[in-house]
């Protein structure tokens, strides 16, 4: 009896092994297959939430059997990005990671195993202004106060070399801010520190401050990128040519939120299918409704538009790179 049950199982297993995942140009390639969606962080958190949401809706628009989330955290998104880059380019692996890695590539930091331009870009889901939030405990109430202050103001940031720390350094240089940066505040630790009256302000992505601001603990005094009602924008404040260019770089990175890419060499026909499904998913009103409930802002861009944004951010003239280097590394 057992053997009878086992035989068809073995047959099915053998048959599934025999299918060559390399067959090219077949319109039904994705039929019954599984796509792995690499997320460069642990489960939970923004990148994971976006991937699970988008993966679920892409499945609606592809004949795939399943889109599974594969969390490969570590080294500030480097492990996930490197894993995606060296995955087999058969159209069955896509991934998402923090585009702050652009800083790493521009400054030739250790750990980047490849050129970000090599990836096949599928799209991006978000992109929102960065902003400065100040604590209500702080003497600084407006951007004018901050620009006029005599004593350095304490700003919290994530660890040295992280994307948010690099953003902070560029902004401080661009606006010639008198700040003292205290690094090492991960996640919500910075908000706790502001509530205790230790650090005065943080510069980061606007949606991450929503709870803090809504709870009445602080308010926004400056935004970089898209305009926010009632909040001064950095382009209106910055005066120097150098400052304008640095602000533009921060803005360009802020626009590249929640990107999704495939490994280099993914067959064009399959890439097109992935891009089409991604676009349909992000244009689905149901996805927008769900994203709103999850508190995930959506501002999509697709395929070649994202490639163009990435290339624009990476193709800096040597003097711009030198400028970024002096702003971030001080050398």
């Amino acid at each position, binding site marked *: 009896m057992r053997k009878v049950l086992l035989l068809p199982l073995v047959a099915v297993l053998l048959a599934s092994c025999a299918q060559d995942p390399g067959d090219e140009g077949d319109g039904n390639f994705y039929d019954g297959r599984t796509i792995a969606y690499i997320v460069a962080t642990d*489960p*939970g958190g923004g990148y994971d939430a976006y991937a699970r949401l988008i993966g*679920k809706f892409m499945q609606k628009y592809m004949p795939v059997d399943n889109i599974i989330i594969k969390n490969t955290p570590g*080294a500030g998104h480097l*492990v996930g990005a490197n894993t995606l880059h060296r995955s087999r380019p058969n159209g069955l692996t896509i991934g998402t990671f923090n585009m702050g890695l652009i800083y790493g590539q521009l400054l030739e930091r250790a750990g980047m195993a490849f050129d970000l331009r090599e990836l096949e870009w599928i799209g991006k889901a978000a992109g929102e202004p960065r902003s400065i939030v100040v604590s209500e405990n702080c003497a600084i109430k407006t951007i004018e106060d901050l620009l006029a202050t005599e004593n350095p103001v304490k700003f919290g940031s994530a660890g040295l070399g992280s994307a948010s720390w690099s953003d902070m350094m560029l902004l401080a240089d661009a606006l010639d801010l008198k700040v003292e940066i205290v690094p090492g505040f991960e996640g919500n630790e910075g908000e706790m520190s502001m509530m205790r009256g230790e650090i005065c302000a943080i510069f980061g992505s606007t949606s991450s401050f929503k709870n803090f601001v809504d709870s009445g603990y602080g308010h926004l005094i400056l935004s970089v990128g898209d305009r926010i009602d009632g909040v001064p924008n950095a382009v209106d404040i910055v005066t120097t040519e150098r400052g304008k260019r640095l602000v533009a770089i921060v803005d360009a990175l802020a626009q590249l939120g929640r990107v999704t890419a495939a490994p280099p060499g993914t067959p064009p026909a399959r890439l097109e299918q992935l891009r089409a499904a991604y676009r349909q998913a992000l244009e689905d009103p149901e996805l927008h409704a769900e994203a709103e409930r999850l508190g995930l802002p959506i501002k999509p861009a697709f395929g070649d538009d994202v490639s163009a944004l990435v290339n624009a951010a990476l193709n800096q003239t040597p003097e711009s790179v030198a400028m970024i280097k002096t702003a971030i590394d001080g050398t």
Partner: protein
Amino acid sequence: MDLGGIYAALLTVVGSPYHLFLLAVAVPIGMFFGAIPGLGGKLGIVLVIPFVFGMDAVAGALFLIAMHSVVHTGGSVPSILFGVPGTGPDAATIVDGLPMTQNGEAGRALGAAFGASGLGGVIGGIFLLALLPLLQPIVLAFSPAEFFLLALFGITLIAMLSGDSLAKGMLVGFFGLMMAFIKLDPQTGIERYTFGQLFLWDGVDIIAAVLGIFALPEMIALGAAGGSMAGESKVAASYGLKGVLRGIGDVFRHWTLSIRTSVIGAFIGMIPGLGGDAASWICYGHAAQSSKTPERFGKGAVEGVIAPETANNSKEGGSLLPTLFFAVPGSSGMAILLGAFVMLGIQPGPALALPQNMDIVFVLIWGLMLANVLAVIMFIAVAPGLGYLSYVRGNLLIPFVLVLAFLGAFLAIRAWENMVLMLAMGVLGYFLKKYHWPRPPFVIGLILGPIAEDSFHKAMALWGPAFLLRPGALVMIGLILLTIGIYVYRLLRHKEAPEWMREDDD
């Protein structure tokens, strides 16, 4: 305090068969995610979020909180039976839970762990209720200065866990601290002893270290000796419901300790940034320190199981406080829960403390407490069966445990390199065991080292050396001096190295 509101919330939960059904479903799911090494509560919540999506706010929140609050109840099972921690905060349970199994007391150890988890969870909930009016000043009193000294305080507990020689304990502890320096320097971004390996950028993974230090050497010893986990015991085999009930009774027999460690756990949980690992180890150290017979620790003292298990459940009650009322999650698990609450239409923040919003808070607190009680009841039924596992022959058990260990090491950071790290740690653990060097100090150094380093840098950047003069810091310094004083007093009273420090576990 709004007693009527609290009572009405209880009725909301127990008066609705639907809500009770959700509790009954959520509890085993939560325990399952805790009991399988490497899965953990965070992944559990992420995976069930889609199912909770369609529920109303009360039902969904109740389901998630019930699931989240019993993860560590399940996590104690593999710690006790195999020396493989289900989750990070369950690692401290190994130190005495595993020897109890080897002594043939697996049932009692499991009973103690469940009883302690349940009691810890309930006390965590009561703590939450009691502290509602005082919340803000207490949570905000803890700055990096106090974090640093609290970590130092934890490190002084190494002395209590050193076994027969303080020098050996300190050496092992300092070796753990040194291993904590392997990572990207948080202040300069420079790689420290990472040898170009990206997986070491975030530091030596604690799960891999604990598995290597505890689980692998025990399996090697078991393989060499033959027999079963409980085979070395000289007492008659004791399993079945009697042992389990005895373990639960132990929790109440040591009721002052149970309450103390529950409160300490809830307190540490309430302060964002310290984490559950620190809570269980500090409570374990406290149990050894405050015991009249500390010589039994590490050899199967039931208090050594009770202390960390009360702490890792009660901390969930504590960490709900900042999560709900400041919208600042007390732990990474709570961060995910926070996101799920927002999705269900519950907006955490100070506005939640307004009377019209307190209903949902009370429902959550009841959910947390009832889930913990329910977890104990459910597990009493299966615990005797689990106890039998300690009598399974080694050659059947070892492959299974090794699979669990490798799985746990891999899943912890989802990198194969972590399995290599675990093996390297296993070599260290094997020799520590073989030559009777104490192993807990290593883990304490590894866990508290990064907290001490990070908060020291922050405190120096914020206040300079004057941070030591903050009132909270002075209290912590007093505590540290007191701990050292007690230790020295005990040494002097016993003249030579007291006999409780002798270790003979073979």
